[in-house]
């Protein structure tokens, strides 16, 4: 009987202790309550709550706070949320998501597929661009081009990037949510963020001198400045032996002609105008 009462006593006292602690915590949570921003809570409800950290913040809450405080204006950082979260965030914050010039997508600035770009050696290591990059700066002769090992493909949260049959990767602009993860992952910088509604695009990232570029890749921009000089209204700007198309409103005439005049044909048409 004595043993039995001991069990009951232990049970009751432990329960009472737990209840006391629970009550204490409840009181404490009242007392130490932090006034949360309504906006933050609203945004938290939209975000997936995975705390994956792909946005660069410590968790969903960190990102929600930055968005609510306006310290971060980019609503497309949440990869797992996908297009739905992007849209909901846009509505909640009053930012237009699909407005002209706002939506950005990733695009590969490289045409150096097999047979076009020279390879220095046969890379047979771990299939990852970063790993290839540490081995003599990658197997491609051109150190600015796509290595084609798919670090971006693996990093894409919405599976918008796929491999092409000729050793490059390809972004599906319809699926791309513009999170920019692939751009950050790409060790050569060949992946770039561009507005989604562009018409023409300079698909090269080589900053090598004309002679080197020509020797390494037949589709590389040699920085000849034909596009910049002959078509001043098209928006081409050549710096570091590389032409970059500036997508400013009001300019753009002559891009088609510039594409035709480009000696290495690296100005490509992106969509029908």
């Amino acid at each position: 009987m004595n043993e039995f009462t001991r069990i009951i006593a232990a049970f009751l006292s432990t329960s009472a202790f737990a209840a006391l602690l629970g009550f204490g915590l409840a009181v404490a949570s009242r007392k130490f309550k932090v006034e949360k921003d309504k906006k933050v809570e609203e945004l938290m409800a939209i975000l997936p709550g995975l705390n994956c950290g792909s946005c660069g913040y410590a968790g969903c809450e960190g990102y929600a706070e930055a968005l609510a405080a306006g310290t971060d204006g980019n609503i497309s950082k949440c990869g797992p949320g996908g297009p739905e979260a992007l849209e909901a965030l846009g509505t909640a914050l009053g930012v237009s998501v699909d407005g002209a010039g706002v939506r950005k997508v990733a695009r590969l600035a490289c045409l150096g597929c097999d047979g076009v770009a020279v390879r220095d050696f046969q890379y047979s290591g771990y299939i990852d661009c970063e790993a290839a990059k540490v081995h003599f700066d990658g197997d491609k002769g051109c150190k600015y081009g796509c290595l084609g090992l798919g670090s971006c493909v693996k990093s894409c949260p919405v599976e918008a990037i796929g491999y092409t049959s000729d050793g490059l990767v390809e972004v599906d602009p319809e699926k791309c949510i513009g999170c920019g993860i692939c751009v950050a992952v790409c060790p050569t910088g060949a992946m770039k963020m561009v507005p989604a509604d562009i018409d023409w695009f300079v698909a090269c990232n080589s900053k090598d001198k004309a002679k080197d570029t020509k020797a390494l890749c037949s589709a590389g921009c040699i920085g000849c400045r034909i596009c910049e000089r002959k078509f001043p209204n098209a928006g081409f700007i050549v710096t570091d032996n590389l032409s970059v198309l500036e997508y400013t409103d009001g300019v753009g005439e002559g891009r088609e002609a510039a594409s035709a005049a480009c000696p290495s044909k690296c100005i490509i048409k992106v969509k029908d105008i």
Partner: protein
Amino acid sequence: MTYVGIILTYTLVSNLVLAQFLGLCPFIGVSKNTESAVGMGFAVTFVMSLAALITWALQRFILVPLHIEFLQTVTFILIIASLVQLVEMVVRKYSPPLYQALGIYLPLITTNCGVLGIALISVNSGYGPMESFLAGLSAGIGFLLALLLMSAIRERLDTEKVPKYLRGAPIAFISGGLMALAFMAFDKALLANIIGG
């Protein structure tokens, strides 16, 4: 045991993770990159120091006088879990920067066996309040050290060519095991040589 002895024992000789195999869940789970490893390490250090101190008080002022030491494990779990929750609230209220740094790791360690482990170890070793606190602190630092080393190893492993079936957790387990083996070099004899006793 002297204070120096306690510090050396729990950071190196009886390292919680590498010698006593406690708290292995965060050791594997949060050691993927150095940044989160350090955050987790400091959160654990913080909680362990406090937990060791408060469980000492619980043991000394409640459990022993009432002769209910057999409720030790249960009450320790209760009080540590509540303590972590309370600390989280207080930190959140009064120190947002600290909460930013440790906040997301605190809920993860409410029931970390390492925290309970060091509380039980220091109580069962008959430590005083200062010794208990030091044991908790140095065990936490030992945990931080183990996590930091592990994360550095794993960051390098990420770019290595690892056989397909060993990628991820398996190679991490093997590396952790080898590291534990290396830590066996810090033994009682070495400690005796250092502090002379």
